């Protein structure tokens, strides 16, 4: 009985030391206001058949000017292992350099290991400004 009490007390005190350490190591959850729309730059900044990475909240997004009038935007985070994708003007596809994942201009997986398509954003041109927004 005494040894149970002693052992239990030692265990409880050890657990009480360990608990704050574990909680300390756990990164705090910072709730950021969700971003649904960003200004991605001026129309003339991007030539037809080219793409660029823009900031969409805390994550990167890929804006592609497909032609003079057609624009596309996707999350730039590869669905495979989180790398940032890029636009390939030679093949008019979206490519991830990390593991050779390839997507088409609808965000669908064409080849390579990505398991899911890229989330597509809506693009609106307001005057000279290109605006990317999350689809409803």
């Amino acid at each position, binding site marked *: 009985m005494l040894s149970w009490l002693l052992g239990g007390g030692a265990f409880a005190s050890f657990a009480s030391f360990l608990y704050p350490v574990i909680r300390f190591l756990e990164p705090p959850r910072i709730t950021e206001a969700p971003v649904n729309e960003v200004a991605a730059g001026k129309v003339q900044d991007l030539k037809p058949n080219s793409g660029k990475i823009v900031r969409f909240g805390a994550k990167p997004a890929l804006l592609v000017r497909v032609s003079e009038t057609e624009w596309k935007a996707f999350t730039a985070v590869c669905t495979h292992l*989180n790398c940032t994708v890029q636009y390939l003007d030679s093949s008019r596809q979206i490519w991830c350099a990390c*593991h050779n994942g390839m997507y088409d201009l609808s965000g669908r997986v064409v080849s390579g290991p990505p398991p899911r398509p890229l989330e597509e954003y809506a693009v609106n041109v307001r005057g000279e400004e290109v605006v990317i927004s999350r689809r409803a």
Partner: protein
Amino acid sequence: MPERRAADWLDDRLGLGAVRELIEHKTVPVHSATRWYYFGGITLFLFAIQVVTGVLLMFYYRPTVAEAFDSVRFIMTRVEFGWLIRSIHSWSANLLIFVAFIHMFSVLFTHAYRPPRELTWWSGIALLGLMMGFGFSGYLLPWNQISYFATKVGADVAASTPLIGAALARFLRGGDEVGGATLTRFFAFHVMVLPLLTAALMGLHLLLIQKSGMSTPPWIPPAGVRQMKFFPNFFLREAMVWYGALAVLGALAAIFPWELGEKADPFASAPRGIRPEWYFLAQFYTLKLIPSHIWIFEGELLGILAFGVLALWWTLLPVWGVNRAGEARTRLVAGLGVLMVAYLSVFTILGYLK
């Protein structure tokens, strides 16, 4: 004589007689596989180089997103011999893992994992894991483009661990994304947590080797094996090998200085030709080959689970690598060992070339 008196004085207080006894009586078997005994010592030597150069780098390195890259560039361009110290640290880290792999495979092919040396094998595997942890955490510290994306991929691989994956990835990253919190965490792992664990495990590993003595391969009859005194005979030979390793290291560091690359930009695409350190290349290339889906499962998840199972199976070698009598299943283990060497070599080369 004053030195004799000083030795006696120390002996009275520290009990050095036991150490002297140990040194005088420790022997090393001499046979056709004796050369493989040196590789554990070379690993230890390279680790000592890492400690010394790592401490020196800490005098100038600053673990923040704003300053990390510039502080490493400062070390390489402004600090006297800074380029050499940093280059030796990087080259030595890579050679250390290479030599540790040779050491592990030499233990496997000479069947030194068999009873009573199971704990020696397990502590060695844990040390290899720690060395790879050093490599992974140290890779991020210069905060360059390649290391940034390698860490993103590595953390995402950790996120695929069943049940605890998401929490583990958050713990590693210090948040939901690789950023400043990741850098300070990795710095803490690299310079405090991993060295403390390594020191403890290395002590245990050496103690176990000391306790069981050097293993002789099963095809060499233990009786009648010639023995060499550890001190000075084996030690001096090992010291010569260390000099050789130092010469190779110095030449590599001076002729091929380790590059710094470009500063990490979280809002840039992953650069072309991105690849992890060579010791993760085989897994990297395998992940590249696995299709997006296998039946109803995600290919990536299956691949990562397969690596986990393989690592566990490899760790359990002292269990499946011996028969009921505790004798090594030499053909099975050697055959699988050759297959593993072939897989790692071929996929590492393919991962580098493609």
